[in-house]
């Protein structure tokens, strides 16, 4: 058990160090940053705010991690968020019960995922393009559902998902914590995670060795659709309305960035759900940090670009061979790739 724990800690170490450094940097500029208070049985504070605001990106990043591990990508998650927010808002305003609304919305997310999955796994279209179709058309569909307006609602049950609290934590945090735990256990306590990695490394070889490639590929995109649906519900519940134009706009890029910051390679293969969740929290911490420290928010994008370029250089096969070549004399016989990371 202890070696396993150590392996996990080693995998997450760069992300944990980055997050700690960011938090320390912000709290030096802005001393009240680390304060936590309990009011009306709910935790308040900037740290909680980061976790709360980051909920949609965390959820999207969970689904995106599994999709990227299969050597795919899902560009449609932002549009699916908009569709699902619109569906939830229109169902609840037309008098359906909360349970019906939630189930139907999640079902819509699953259908969107199925569509993407079938295009990728059965029709064998490259993932970027297959999911581009839904990305282009999805926002139109969402606007069709809301009829071009921002649909607002007052149902207390649905609003609770966005701004309520459970056991002292805001609901969005509870939802993503539970969601990531379930997915992480599902992929790591069964062989599913390993099979997904096998597909990402070599799809043909895994099919030949008996992995049900099409089923797993479709399942990965369905999971991503389900995550996007949950994120869509949270985003709509947060503003008490469905905005087909802006809900989830460009969040697919943030989700991809979160996965990349989490150290999962875009070339498929090994993945870590926990690292992606940390990646999403890091991105949100940077966003909040820039706002708090009084830097103009315009620098946000440049900092994100700098982070991507830095990580790309670290992940680059060329760079790694270069580093391991240089460090062979020092660490003879030891696996140098881990250290190079």
């Amino acid at each position, binding site marked *: 058990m202890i070696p396993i724990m150590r392996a996990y800690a080693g995998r997450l170490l760069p992300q944990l160090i980055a997050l700690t450094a960011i938090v320390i940097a912000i709290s030096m500029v802005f001393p009240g940053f680390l304060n936590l208070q309990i009011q009306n049985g709910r935790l308040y504070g900037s740290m909680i705010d980061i976790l709360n605001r980051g909920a949609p990106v965390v959820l999207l990043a969970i689904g995106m991690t599994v999709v990227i591990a299969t050597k795919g990508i899902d560009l449609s998650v932002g549009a699916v968020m908009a569709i699902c927010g619109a569906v939830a808002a229109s169902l609840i305003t037309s008098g359906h019960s909360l349970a019906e609304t939630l189930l139907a919305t999640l079902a819509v997310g699953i259908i969107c995922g199925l569509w993407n999955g079938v295009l990728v796994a059965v029709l064998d279209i490259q993932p970027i393009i297959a999911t581009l179709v839904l990305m*282009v058309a999805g926002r139109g569909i969402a606007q069709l559902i809301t009829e071009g307006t921002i649909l607002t609602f007052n149902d207390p049950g649905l609003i609770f998902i966005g701004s309520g609290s459970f056991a002292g934590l805001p609901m969005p945090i509870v939802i993503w914590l539970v969601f990531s735990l379930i997915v992480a256990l599902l992929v790591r306590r069964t062989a599913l995670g390993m099979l997904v990695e096998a597909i990402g490394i070599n799809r043909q070889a895994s099919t030949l060795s008996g992995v049900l490639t099409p089923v797993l590929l479709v399942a990965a995109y369905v999971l991503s659709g389900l995550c996007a649906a949950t994120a869509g519900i949270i985003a709509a519940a947060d503003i008490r309305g469905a905005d087909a134009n802006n809900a989830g706009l460009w969040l697919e890029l943030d989700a991809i960035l979160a996965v990349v910051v989490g150290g999962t390679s875009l070339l498929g293969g090994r993945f870590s759900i926990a690292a992606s969740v940390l990646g999403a929290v890091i991105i949100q911490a940077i966003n909040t940090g820039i706002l708090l420290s009084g830097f103009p928010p315009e620098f946000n994008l440049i900092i994100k670009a700098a982070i991507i370029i830095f990580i790309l250089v670290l992940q680059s096969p060329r760079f790694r061979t270069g580093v391991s070549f240089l460090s062979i004399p020092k660490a003879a016989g030891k696996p140098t790739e881990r250290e190079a990371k």
Partner: protein
Amino acid sequence: MKQKYLPLTATILIFGLSYALCVAQYPNMLSTRVIGNLLTDNAFLGIAAVGMTFVILSGGIDLSIGAVIAFAGVFLAVVLEHGGMHPLVAFALLLAITTLFGAIMGAIIHYLEMPAFIVTLAGMFLTRGMAFVLSIDSIPIKHPFYATLKSLYFKLPGGGRITLIGGLMLFVFAVGILIAHRTRFGTNIYALGGGTATAKLMGVPVAATTIRIYALSGLLAGLSGIVFSLYTSAGYSLAAVGVELDAITAVVIGGTLLTGGSGFVAGTLVGILIQGLIQTYITFDGTLSSWWTKILIGLLLFAFILLQKGIIHLSRPERQRA
């Protein structure tokens, strides 16, 4: 008929059919005015799409062009309104910057062996961030030279006008077709799209070609930004969001294979015109909402991807027999 002409033929047929349908419903659409406007309104998209065609032909993708267009607009607005530079000097400076930017992305893609998708995504964040840093306001451009450029047009019979920017787009397409089919660089692009390893064995200079492709895409995105700033007479850092997706869609509808190696620059022009036609039809109709544009374009994109898959599927058994 050769199989490689099939997607292009389908595109042209669809354009002809849909234009005929539009004219049957609204006879006014058959005028040189509508055609002239079609060219003017889609000029910036068309110019950027030529660059995207080359990138996709080589098997890559460039997500940064929308951001480059926005950056170009803000850069020109700031330089012209606050710097007092002559527009032509500013244009040359801007094109040099965007070309260099594209070349750097190409170099990163080649030398670090990273997917084009993520490198150009970083480029997109960087350029849009630079545009934000230059200015977050929408700056109007009031330089007299701009008014002169905008007043230039070629009059068609029937009252239509081919404006400077519409004509420039046609010129860029003509040059693009020449580059693709009549130069060594063009042949190298097609070879690269067929497979990097094969291209290398055939003696294609992979590094130089990759860098040049993205530099060309950067150059054309910069040119498209100039056209966009002429078209809107303003620079705004949030402008041209999602243009890269429109350009990719136009390229695919135009019959270029997304895996690279097969396609035509001319097809992209038809792809642009089909998108423009859908928008014009919705404007003429007046009752349809603008979001139908997105859904229809999405459906067309899907149909063309299926068509491409079908063609590849059909051509396989023949290859095995040969």
